[in-house]
């Protein structure tokens, strides 16, 4: 791991058991099934880097973010923050690292307490992590600075407001402020704009970019929307059924996708240019719910137009095909 790496994730797994009915467990001798929500995921995140995780719903991107922050415990693998393996730490010891690793959630209406004013929400965070040392004055100036930082200006107009009085964009700014006050090293933003109006989305993304430029915060941006990922990410990872199928610099992934799934995903993005022709989708079918048929082979095999026997026999490992650009596929296409 190089010195500028903030986060290093190695072979991370998260399996969920599939519950069987009582009768089935009595009469069947098969080992109980699991859903591999996160399956052997490895990547590193540099300082000041924004890494996007893009995939369809159910591909495990949210589970990945929760597993990194140990909001659910991983089944296997390791997550290292700087040089510490945080998966090996006890709960108490890990709490010291929590302020450095933060998260912004998808639903700003649900993630803020409706009975707390904006200032109270921030005050809560300051108190829990003892950022003001008990000084009321320091507390107030910290809240004021944070509100100005996330552009809720003039700050006294928002101080005593309850979440019900704010728009989605403003609420998401409060969420970002709540994270920012802790001076984190990296933040996982899980679909931070998917519930917001089109006209305010870019404002939130720009705020994230500014936090990166000003404080050197790294971001993991989780989204199903390749278009906004392209807008803010330095690198993009494409996920399919728990695995990273392609990861590389944004422009390389967007303009020269090599994995058949990435190619399909890009072809499916609607084009805002009404004169453009609809490209044909190269893949068919739907994402399977359980992964029985793909236990040994490539996860994408059942939908892949190029798959053959090799793809059914074993799982492809990441191949380096360019500068920091890796693709897991036996049939890498140009």
């Amino acid at each position, binding site marked *: 791991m190089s010195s500028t790496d903030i986060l290093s994730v190695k072979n991370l797994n998260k399996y969920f058991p599939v519950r069987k009915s009582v009768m089935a467990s009595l009469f069947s001798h098969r080992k109980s099934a699991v859903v591999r929500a996160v399956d052997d995921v490895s990547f590193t995140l540099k300082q000041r880097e924004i890494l996007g995780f893009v995939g369809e719903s159910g591909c495990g991107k949210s589970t990945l973010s929760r597993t990194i922050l140990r909001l659910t415990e991983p089944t296997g693998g390791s997550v290292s923050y700087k040089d510490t393996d945080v998966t090996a730490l006890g709960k108490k010891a890990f709490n010291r690292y929590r302020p450095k690793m933060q998260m912004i959630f998808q639903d700003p209406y649900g993630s803020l307490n409706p009975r707390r004013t904006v200032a109270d929400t921030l005050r809560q965070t300051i108190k829990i992590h003892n950022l003001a040392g008990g000084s009321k004055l320091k507390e107030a100036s910290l809240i004021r600075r944070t509100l100005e930082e996330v552009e809720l200006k003039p700050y006294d107009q928002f101080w005593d407001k309850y979440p019900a009085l704010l*728009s989605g964009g403003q609420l998401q700014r409060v969420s970002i402020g709540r994270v920012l006050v802790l001076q984190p090293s990296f933040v996982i933003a899980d679909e931070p704009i998917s519930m917001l109006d089109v006209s305010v989305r*870019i404002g939130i993304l720009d705020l994230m970019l500014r936090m990166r430029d000003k404080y050197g915060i790294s971001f993991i941006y989780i989204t199903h929307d390749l278009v906004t990922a392209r807008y803010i990410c330095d690198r993009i990872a494409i996920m399919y059924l728990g695995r990273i199928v392609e990861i590389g610099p944004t422009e390389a992934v967007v303009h020269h996708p090599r994995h058949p799934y990435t190619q399909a995903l890009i072809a499916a993005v609607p084009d805002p240019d009404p004169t*453009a022709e609809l490209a044909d989708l190269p893949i068919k079918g739907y994402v399977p719910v359980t992964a029985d048929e793909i236990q040994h082979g490539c996860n994408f095999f059942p939908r892949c137009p190029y798959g053959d026997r090799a793809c059914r026999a074993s799982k492809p490992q990441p191949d380096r095909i360019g500068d920091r650009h890796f693709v897991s596929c036996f049939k890498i296409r140009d």
Partner: protein
Amino acid sequence: MALLEVENLNLHFLTRRGPAKAVDGISFMIEKNETFGLIGESGCGKTTTALAIIRLIKPPGRIVAGSIRFDETDIVNLSDEQMRLLRGKEIAIVRQEAQNALNPVMTIGRQITEVIRQHEAVSKETALARARNQLNLVGINGDRVKAYPHEFSGGMKQRAMVAIATACNPRFLILDEPTTGLDVIVQRQLLALINNLKRKLNLTSILISHDLSVIAETCDKVAVMYAGKIIEQAETVLLYQNPIHPYSRALIGAFPTLKGAKKKLSSIPGAPPRLIDPPRGCRFEPRCEHAMEICKTVEPKIIKENSHLVACHLVKQPGPKDPVCSIGKRQSSP
């Protein structure tokens, strides 16, 4: 010939603090076999307009003025009984969030036959056979008529909604954010399906969305709504290539793309006005970077400019004696 003509529609929600003007004097017409797009931020009145067309507005919402002529009949004045004959038979709707729109305790087949038997005197068996056909038509195996909604994935539920809506071969289909919440690949499959059905069944439709690119790929004409008003309307290609109203321009400017070079985008500052006491002049004035003195006090009229219809003071407004162009019947006659 126009199949649907909305003229000066006013729809208010009566609240204790006064009427909220959710739809405030909008007019448009939709020709046969045309797909008309309605785009705007949440709360701009686009869904309310859709529900008004199929007369599903519940109190405290009320149509206070204007007319909706469907095939020469003004449906605003129809009795509930007459409306029921039309609804599902002539005008059908695919609502957003199929998750909530489908009945969870009724099989899909039953939900399709219910519509058929409501409007046509056919036996249960015939209706069920047609339900199978409907499912096949939308790409679901007809044998799944006995399935309940929870057995379907999000994309399949949305397809089932389309199957229900088209069960009686309606002439007019309302698509209210049909792909919101779906993944891009599923979204693409659904849009392709809708485009196919439109051709097969000679459907005229209105598509409501906040997503510019979805509208660009499907619609012939677009109207941009803001705070209960249509502020610009034109053919899709014209509107995208040369938007006139500052709001349309900002909306298109706030939308990132996958193709071409990465460009800096800007969001629109502020939030839409409250509909209980909207600004006296132009509703977009508080957020508009080109706002002038006159915009604060005088509401701009909608006028024709380079084959767009646009309501903005930047475009020369007609004098008191000039005829005012409205988007009603007059414009259609040569």
